[in-house]
């Protein structure tokens, strides 16, 4: 069928037709970014087509542990999220804010002229879409919306995938951010044995899908997809009780558990780097040797870094106890006051990629459990 599928409907395409969808995205001027096997993990990277996707691969996730494993042969998206998230492409780890050039009057401020990449982000999960929606609030709804984020965000095509194989550290069912993609995508795939079901989320998505040999999804296929998602929801490796947040944490800022977790936490900042919603930044100024031209670059930072809280007179959070507490209370409490939404999307990345295996669901449960750990 060559017509355009209506927005809001489900289509079905033969599995090999995913190649045509990706080719249509490239033809439309997008740079493809998707999951791919590199460095012993499934990471996001630029891909040329389906051959670069982790077909037949899966991964084991546990606290402080990630292992790439052969999965179901031919399964294209048979794995849970790796260490990378969309923020790496929409809010990169280093971005020039502006440059200055010395003049007789002082200096001129030159806007950053870096071109804005048009990414098609392939394989985003429901938790990733939820994280993007959260970062939209952070970067676009504040007192000074960020034009760099806006440009990248508006230029991006989001090709999402419904998660049928949650990992051992996943808990999006608890945060109500998955495993089904409910909004914020251009196209959302559900991988069945023989076909991809494709939910059309936008006009742009519909035009891209028109390039593949799609047909309306059958009722039986939709039922299979729904069952698979319901089953996935029941197979989350972790759960998190989100009741009474933020008060639970505000009332327990002196809980002994903070001391206990600080004894294990290395304050390495891995959790904040892999977190799809963490947004804190620093700025770095550089200049040429003569000081004529300078550049001001915004870089990712972390509340776990010692310098993060420095003011004249000292560091406000010299101890890891205070830094871990800051991170967790921001993510699970203050975030709700600030942005009207939990700062955690249940992706489990911070658990998997913590070298000490610290599990925020466990820490929260310990605090909920009472004043004695």
């Amino acid at each position, binding site marked *: 069928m060559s017509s355009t599928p209506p927005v809001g409907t489900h289509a079905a395409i033969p599995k090999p037709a995913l190649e045509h969808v990706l080719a249509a995205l490239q033809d439309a001027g997008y740079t493809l970014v998707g999951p791919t096997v590199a460095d012993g993990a499934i990471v996001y990277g630029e891909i040329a087509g389906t051959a670069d996707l982790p077909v037949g691969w899966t991964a084991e996730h546990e606290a402080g542990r990630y292992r790439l494993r052969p999965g179901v042969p031919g399964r294209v998206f048979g794995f849970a999220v790796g260490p990378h998230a969309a923020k790496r492409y929409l809010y990169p780890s280093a971005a020039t804010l502006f440059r200055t050039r010395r003049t007789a009057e002082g200096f001129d401020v030159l806007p950053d002229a870096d071109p804005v990449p048009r990414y098609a982000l392939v394989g985003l999960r429901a938790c990733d879409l939820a994280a993007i929606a959260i970062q939209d609030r*952070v970067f676009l709804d504040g*007192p*000074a919306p960020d034009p760099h984020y806006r440009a990248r965000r508006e230029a991006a095509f989001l090709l999402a995938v419904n998660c049928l194989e949650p990992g051992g550290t996943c808990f999006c069912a608890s945060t109500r951010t998955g495993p089904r993609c409910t909004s914020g995508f251009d196209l959302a795939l559900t991988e069945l044995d023989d076909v991809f079901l494709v939910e059309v989320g936008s006009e742009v998505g519909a035009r891209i899908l028109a390039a593949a040999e799609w047909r309306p999804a059958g009722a039986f296929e939709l039922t299979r997809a729904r069952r698979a998602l319901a089953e996935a929801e029941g197979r989350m490796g972790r759960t998190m009780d989100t009741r009474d947040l933020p008060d639970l944490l505000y009332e327990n800022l002196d809980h002994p558990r903070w001391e206990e977790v600080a004894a294990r936490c290395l304050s390495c900042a891995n959790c904040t780097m892999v977190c799809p919603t963490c947004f804190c930044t620093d700025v770095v100024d550089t200049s040429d040797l003569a000081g004529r031209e300078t550049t001001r670059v915004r870089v990712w930072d972390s509340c776990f870094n010692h310098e993060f809280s420095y003011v004249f007179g000292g560091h406000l959070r010299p101890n890891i106890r205070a830094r871990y507490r800051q991170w967790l209370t921001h993510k699970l409490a203050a975030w709700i006051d600030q942005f009207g939404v939990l700062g955690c999307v249940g992706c489990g990345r911070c658990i998997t990629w913590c070298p000490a295996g610290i599990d925020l669901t466990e820490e929260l449960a310990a605090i909920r459990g009472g004043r004695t750990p």
Partner: protein
Amino acid sequence: MSTAAAPAAPHPLSPHLAHLVAVRPEAPGIATYTLELADPGLRARYAFAPGQFNMLFLPGIGECAISLSSDAAEPGRLAHTVRAVGSVTRAIARLRPGDAIGVRGPYGSAWPVDRLRGRDLIVVAGGIGLAPLRPVIYHLVRHRQAYGRVQLLIGARVPADLLYVAEYDAWRASDIEVVETVDRADDAWTGRVGVVPVLFYQLRPDPKRTAVLTCGPEIMMRFVIYEALARRIPKEAIFLSLERNMKCAVAVCGRCQYGPIFLCKDGPVLSYDRVEPFFSVEEY
């Protein structure tokens, strides 16, 4: 790589060019720098409220948040009282009149001077904490009839650290009761000795009509608040200005968070009832 058009407008975190027009030494390591925005249109539009701050920028060195310490009724000239303690503030201390500096702002919340009309005010400053309160004093001087009794309690570690001493007589002439104290006297000092909160011992404020405005080291503000609460002044009538590390001033760098509060956007001036849950938490 395929690309979309880059944003043509300057990033909102870009500074505006300004020039230093005057430097006035205030105390050892502290001076007041008066700036003028270079663009006449911007200069005409610029307005601030007492308690707000600017981000001051030097190319290749960096940026820092500094309170405005001048009269908000004269926003064409922007004074910032700065202690040279970090890379940016030390570089500011090396500037000479005519030198360029970047300015963006104003940012943050203000002392609620309009809401406090008709009230008695106790203004308590410690050290350089007097800087963000000076615009309040100027406002009170200009609108003295609109307020009740005004007491200004000023503390410094040593007499040489007292800021704006030359102005105290003018403030007194406007019926503002100025009381100074120092932690350590020198041979020439004939005034009070002791920390600022002690000055509260002599006060008998009417809790129903009094508001407290304070800025200084957190340990000082802690005791000021203790003394104010002991005199039944409600939490909602105690205002303080807090300081945290800031890089953006628009609630995206995440550094100035104080519980749910972004001090750059919701602060730096806050009423004590909003601060209280976190104010006594260690290392918060």
